[in-house]
Structure formats: C-alpha cells, structure tokens
C-alpha cells in the first residue's frame, strides 16, 4: 500500500526540509536520472521537467498528515516548505525500503539554486542527444534563463558527481 508515497517519504526523511515546489520537482527528477527508482512520471513543461503525479502525491501526503506544508507569500507567487511529520516517520517504520541512502544527493542539491537544478534537469531531459546538441537545446528552450556555456559545464560536473555517489 502506498509504496510510491513511502519512497517519497523516505526522501523527505533524509533531509530537514525542502523549500520550494520547483526545487522538489527537479530534485526527484534528477534522482530518477541517477537511477533512484522513483516512479513519478515527468513531462517537459514551461520550466523544465515537471510531474503532475508528484504534485498530487505530495498533496495526498500533506492531506494524510505524513508531510507538512507551509505556504509563504512572495511578491508574485507562493513558496512552500515541506517536512516529514511524526506520522510520516511512523508510517515509514512499516516499510522495508530498497532505496539507497539519499542524504548526500539531497545535501548537494539543497545547496544549489532552483535555477541551477532547472538547468541540470533540463540537460538530463535531453540526455539522449549528443552533448553539443544538448547545449543548443538548453539555449533554445531556456532562452529566458540566459544560461551560459560555463553554467552547462558546471551542470555536467554536478551530474557526474551525483552519479558517482553510489
């Protein structure tokens, strides 16, 4: 029961809190691309890979009291903070999870901006293309973000590092 929710709870249990829905979306996508077996399905949207399934699953976990969500009003948008609750921790004790430890991945990603994670997840979305085409694609679909070649090089380094963790 709720195996996919439990995997996400495991993710939340590996960190103190996640700030921002965009960051959460990109982190799970990047972890998937690092062979962590999350099942949420992604499509490319205006701001890069996005999973409606993940959004709804997080909403369910909040409604069930497994994850707490705090909303803060910003100038033109709302920002959300997520934490695993005691009920969530209790729920997790019923599961034998086959996920590898995620702390190191999460710490690395938490230390980066959501803009950078958007870049990395977009690069990973086009990973099947040759490297130079990926850069071209990023410049095209993310023209408003003004990413530079240096950003992309940094993105590759970051991906390589994340994938070397396990």
């Amino acid at each position, binding site marked *: 029961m709720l195996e996919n929710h439990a995997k996400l709870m495991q993710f939340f249990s590996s960190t103190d809190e996640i700030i921002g829905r965009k960051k959460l979306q990109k982190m799970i996508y990047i972890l998937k691309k690092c062979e962590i077996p999350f099942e949420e399905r992604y499509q490319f949207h205006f701001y890069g890979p996005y999973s409606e399934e993940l959004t709804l699953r997080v909403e369910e976990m909040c409604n069930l009291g497994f994850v707490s969500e705090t909303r803060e009003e910003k100038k033109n948008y709302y920002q959300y903070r997520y934490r695993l609750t005691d009920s969530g921790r209790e*729920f997790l004790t019923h599961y034998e999870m086959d996920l590898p430890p995620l702390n190191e991945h999460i710490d690395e990603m938490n230390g980066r901006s959501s803009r950078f994670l958007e870049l990395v997840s977009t690069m990973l979305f086009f990973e099947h293309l040759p490297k130079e085409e990926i850069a071209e694609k990023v410049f095209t679909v993310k023209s408003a973000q003004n990413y530079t070649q240096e950003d992309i090089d940094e993105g590759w380094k970051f991906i390589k590092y994340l994938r070397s963790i396990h």
Partner: protein
Amino acid sequence: MAYRDEKLSEEKVFKDPVHRYVHVRERVIWDLIGTAEFQRLRRIKQLGTSYLTFHGAEHSRFNHSLGVYEIVRRIIENFQARPNWDQEERLLCLCAALLHDLGHGPFSHSFEKVYKLDHEDFTQAILLGDTEVNKVLSKVEKGFPKKVADVINKTYENKLVVSLISSQIDADRMDYLQRDAYFTGVSYGHFDMERILRVMRPMEDQVVVKESGMHAVEDYIMSRYQMYWQVYFHPVTRSAEVILTKILHRTKELYEEGYTFKLEPIHFLSFFSGQPTLKEYLALDESVVLYYFQTWMEEEDTVLSDLCHRFVNRRLFKYIEFNPNAQMNEWMELYKLFVKAGLNPDYYLVVDSSSDLPYDFYRPGEEGERLPIHLLQPNDELKELSRLSDIVESISGKKRTDHKLYFPLDRLEEMSNRSKTKKRIMEILFDKE
C-alpha cells in the same frame, strides 16, 4: 504547388457531435488522417475503462484528436493578423494538434504503469520512425517530423505554439472536457468555448485571455473540477482500472514464473520482457487486449481467470473510503485475514489513490512550477487567474485527494457465516458483522 500548401479540391468535413463539423482543407491533414497509425486511434478508447460506468463512453482517441485539431484550427483563424502570431506556424500547429495522442496504447494508463512505458515516447517514435505518418510529414520538408515531435514534446522553441496544444487552457482540455461530458451523458463539462476562443490572445510565449473573458474561463475551470470528481475519479471506473491493472500484473508474474498459458500471449511477450518495438506496440490495440481477456477466462490459474471474468462481465470490486494514516493497523490485519481466507491480498485487497489517476487540476502554482492561466488586463498587464477570480481561488484551495480500499465482496460473502475470519473482515470493512 508545394505539398505543404496543397489544398483539397473541395473542403472535407467530418460530422462531429461536439463541434458540429470538423473542417479539413489541407492535403497534409487529409493524408495524415488516412495513415494506419492515425486510424489505429479508432481502436483506443478515450476514457479507458469508463465505459463500464458510463455506457456511452465508447468514444475513441480518433474522435478526440480530430476535435483538438478543429479547436486549434479555429483559434488560429482568430489569431491571424494579430501581433505575436506567425502564420508560418499554422500547419505545424494543426499537425501537432491532430497527432498529439498518437502514441497512446490500449488502456494506456494501466499498461504504462505495469510495463513501465510512456506513450509520449511512442508518439515520438511514430513521428520520427519508419511509419506512414512520418512519410507524410517528411513530404512537407525534411525537418518537419522533428518540429511536430518537438511541439508535442513541449520542447519546441516557439512556446506560444506549444501552449496551444498543451497548457492549462489548451485545445486538448477544451475538447476532452466537452467530448467526455457528451459521451458520458453528464451535465457537467459544458462551458462557452466560443467565448473563450474570441478572447484568447497570442503573446510572445503563451496564450492569454482578455480579462473580460474571465467568467467564461471560470466556467471552464469549474467544468474541469466537476468532471474530475463526477467522471474521471468515479469509484466504479477506478474499480475496473484496479482489476485491469491486476490482470496485467498477474500475466507478467505468471510469464516470469514460466507458467504455460493455454493461449500463448504472443502480443504481450515483448511487453513482459522489456521494451516492445514500435511495430509490436502498434499491433496491440484494445480489441486485441479484450480478445486475450476473453481467452484468459479459461486459464487454469484461478487468479487470472477470475480477474478476467470480473473485467469482461463487469463483476467489479466493491470499495470503502480508506485513510492510510488512521487505518494502518486495520490494513495490516486485513492483509493477514485475506491470506487466511485464501484470497491473495496482492490481487484482492487494493488501496487506490487519486494520484494513481492521470488527470490534473488547475494549479495557480508557485514561481517556476507550471505555467498558470494569465488574464490580460486593460493596461496590458498579466495577472494569474486565481488572483482575480474568487471562484477559482476557492477551488484551488480545496482538498482534492482521496483513497479507497477495493476488495471482492462477493467472495467474502460466499464464505461460511460461521467463519471467524469472515466475521472479523466484515467488522473491519463495514464496522458490522
């Protein structure tokens, strides 16, 4: 005349119950409709298992695809000569609208979940592979299939074009809401589309709606909200979906155990053992799947034959509301009791969550999440819809999730009334003996 500009000698029209007529003038569109891959969509139902709840819901992805094409055609008609609109993109938009669902398989939601597939990948493969569709598109120009694929994949450089096919107020949603309402026979799902089309405006990277059209958009959002709860999340449809998913799991499990099927499931083998080729994928439509379900009713494996019998003859699982947090202990006890009762709980005791369903609500979103609907104000400023509309604001904040527990009540009722196991199961499920 270049193929891309070729017109039919006479306009063709398809009678359509939702839009009255679907108009086709372009040779390219006419040729695409005639391809084998597009005609296959006639054999894929738009609403999957919903026909077991709403008997009229037998409409196909073919109907819907024509509908999306027609809406985009009308939007573009209104966009002509407006700022930000490039008429050179017209044919690309029409092709992408027509072909956006091309990769859907039979009962695609369940199939994709069990066999870890993604219909979007197959849409790309059909557009770019050795197919009749690709041949037609390639006649327009060499890179044209790739352009169509990029629009459908939402990675095309012109985001305005993408947003016509895929955004929170796009032709896809506007068609399926009205079409699904029509075929299910419900009175929700209706909104003033003509009004919305009149007040849509092309901006640099998205379609927006004039503020004066806000009430028509509110109606659209309200229809969407009601359709989710009344049609898409219908608990009986979900029961059929649960059984279908379990059939697919069971056949896969049996195949992996080396079970000998009375009728070898040739069409399924590549699905069991990894990635099916495009040819294999296209060969499996809903008529083929239902044929297998009929034959599997005679299988020796009692779980498989029972589940197929349930699906084919509509002997669905019953359900109760379930709270996985508050009822965790009950779940664990039920699991053990079902084993004791000889009912494999992995197949006969199923928690289904709203996130297991493929539909989405309107989301105002935070910065950088998903592009919301923007209203164009008289001073040319853009404002997110829920910031101006109290109705949308109130719906956006509503609880939209639920969980249900499905089980075969008929099998439990068949058990002896003296059985302590039965008594306890009934107590937990219905809080009574």
